[in-house]
């Protein structure tokens, strides 16, 4: 038996699509909508739904701007989002037996 606490798993990140978005943004720091959609390989509508849920939870921040007169939305991982991802990875690692290959933590991708 492990000391893994199922209740502590973040339900929001339990979805693979949302997990992929948060992990992608942990590496990219900031990305526009089309890049996120490409990364998670889904449709505009599906990407929008998941991005909205993450935004509502405060895990990502959206910023709209105009580039060549076209609206562009850029997404950034928030501190809460980064912490949630790290906690999620830490919980997963607790499921592995001692000596299992741990995941490297995506903490060093932050830029000022």
């Amino acid at each position, binding site marked *: 038996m492990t000391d893994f606490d199922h209740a502590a798993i973040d339900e929001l990140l339990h979805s693979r699509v949302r997990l992929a978005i948060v992990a992608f943004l*942990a*590496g*990219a*720091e900031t990305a526009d909508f089309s890049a996120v959609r490409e*990364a998670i390989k889904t449709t505009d509508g599906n990407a929008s739904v998941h991005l909205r849920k993450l935004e509502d939870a405060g895990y990502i921040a959206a910023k709209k701007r105009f580039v060549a007169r076209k609206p562009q939305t850029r997404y950034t991982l928030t501190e809460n989002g980064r912490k949630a991802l790290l906690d999620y990875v830490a919980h997963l690692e607790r499921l592995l037996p001692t000596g299992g290959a741990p*995941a490297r933590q995506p903490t060093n*991708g932050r830029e000022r």
Partner: protein
Amino acid sequence: MIEDRVRDDIAFIRRAVEEGRNYATHSSPEIMIWGIAVAVGYLGTYAFLRGWSPVRPSWMWGLCIGAPWLYSLRRLLPAFEQPWADSPMARALSMLSVGCGICLTTLAVAAIWTGDIRQGWFGAVVAGVLGVAFFVSAWLSNLAWLRWVAVLWWLGEIGVFALRHRPEVLPLSAALMLLLLAGPGLLLSLRRKSV
């Protein structure tokens, strides 16, 4: 097995983070190669002027400009297509670097052809254009520290212009290339590989 599932999940997260980093830093090896190649060109020219090297600067520059161009143009080959080449930001950054490269290369060829390169202003133009390139890249890629690289390039432009009639401008230009072009390329590459 739950362990397999967990390892799969962790690998999935790692891949996604890696993709994100590749998206943010896709042009870093190119920046590094250009910085090193041009620095070698400056140092080779300085060595020729001092009598330390028999290699003529024209040959040296042909190699130091031609080789990085070949590396940059490899992206036109299907085998080297980048996964992020179609994203608006990647397109903008690529066009910016290609535009600056064409501008500086054509100006360099013209200056060498006419002999105006001996007047020494070309190095300052290179520094100024690279400052603009980094300033715009900082905004496009949302990497604020690149703006400081742009500011340092513009300070370097003043230094290069001030020394334009002295041979010491060559090692100064080489140092700027290594510190302010190859250096940021290296930092971005390390950031890419540190996941």
